[in-house]
């Protein structure tokens, strides 16, 4: 008797009804005689059932009135707007797009009205005229900090009084390691995302805003978040994962 070998993922796909007819038949036949196979399959049948039983009933919970009301309002406002076509919406359609699946890509630029934007591709550090800072020296210091310091850390940069705050570490869609950080200088604050490629840190996004009360307008953070969403940034790494990834 030839015992066919089915891997976990095939068994799971069977449990989830994702196999085609031929594969389904093959497994059904094997199940008739193979108890161990049935046992392995049970893991996938049971787990689906368990999770479904536990979480599906949530859908019957009444949506809180406040939420319902505010979403209704959002929806109604949007419908009113579409009824009167607007011409003052900025169109980004002409921008080159690398990936058709990211059709909404340029939207992260929208909340930017108030900030000074610098979008760069280059070695870390942004010698931007407006902020007039970030010498080569501090660029090197930033790169070193990106290589070494854990997220959540504030790193003073030299004697300039500038402080680098490491926000998070994550993987971008292409698998490269990226870090979000914030550079606080005398007259400005920069939110940036840099990714490591071939051992060098490349700035992907840097938003510099003049400091008024010591914090940047919410729109900068929003922009960074939207940007991260468009590059399909993964969840932030835990401190252990981060340590490992940085040492690689």
């Amino acid at each position, binding site marked *: 008797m030839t015992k066919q070998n089915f*891997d*976990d*993922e095939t068994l*799971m*796909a069977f449990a*989830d009804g*994702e196999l085609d007819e031929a594969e389904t038949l093959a497994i059904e036949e094997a199940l008739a005689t193979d108890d*161990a196979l049935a*046992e*392995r399959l*049970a*893991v*996938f049948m*049971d*787990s*689906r059932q*368990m*999770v*479904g*039983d*536990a*979480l*599906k*009933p*949530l*859908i*019957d*919970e009444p*949506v*809180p009135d*406040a*939420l*319902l009301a*505010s*979403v*209704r309002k*959002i*929806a*109604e406002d*949007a*419908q009113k707007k*579409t009824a009167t076509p607007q011409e003052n919406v900025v169109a980004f359609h002409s921008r080159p797009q690398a990936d058709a699946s990211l059709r*909404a890509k340029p*939207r992260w630029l*929208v909340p930017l009205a108030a900030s000074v934007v610098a979008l760069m591709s280059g070695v870390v550090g942004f010698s931007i005229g407006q902020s007039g800072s970030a010498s080569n020296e501090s660029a090197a210091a930033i790169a070193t900090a990106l290589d070494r310091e854990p*997220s*959540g850390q504030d790193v003073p940069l030299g004697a300039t009084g500038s402080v680098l705050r490491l*926000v*998070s570490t*994550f993987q971008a*869609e292409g698998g490269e390691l990226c870090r*979000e950080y914030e550079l606080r200088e005398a007259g400005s604050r920069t939110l940036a995302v840099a990714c490591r490629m071939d051992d060098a840190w490349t700035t992907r996004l840097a938003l510099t805003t003049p400091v008024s009360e010591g914090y940047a307008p919410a729109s900068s953070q929003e922009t960074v*978040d939207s940007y*991260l*969403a468009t590059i*399909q*940034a*993964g*969840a*932030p790494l835990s401190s252990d994962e981060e340590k490992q990834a940085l040492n690689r």
Partner: protein
Amino acid sequence: MTSASPSVPERLVAFLPNLRRFAISLCRSRELADDLVQAACERAILAADSFAPDSRFDAWMFRILRNLWIDHLRRQKTAGPHQELDEARDLVVPSGESAAHARMDLAFVLDALQKLPEEQREVLVLVCVEELSYKDAAEVLSIPIGTVMSRLARARKNLIELTGISFGEKRSLDKKGGVL
């Protein structure tokens, strides 16, 4: 752009219970879930043009909400982990459920779900609760189908393992398959 298919704003309100269930499953706190749902609706309106009318509205909305959740996690990370501990207790205890043993089983499952890594829980919820196909789940998470399958298989073996321990009845899991 067919006038027959309802617009994004028209669909939002009807989809709320579903979106909210997904949000609670992800973030394990109703309060946070409601904030996420509202933010997702706002973003959906802004991005309404990017929704292709012939594609799945649920998958599109789940993707928006899930990305917001990831953003939240990223920011919370810097604030420190203390918040999550308080919120974790605020999970699902359905009121309609009467049988005591069923409640207990449920508690084990929920407990086990909370112990799963984020990336395993989200794929588990999309497929086993929201009943998305592997293909649609892959789209929501922006990962290849192969990754959906490997994560999902790992999540389910881990879940059975975790609840098995809780129930006190050891199942003979195939360790060669690589639990954990």
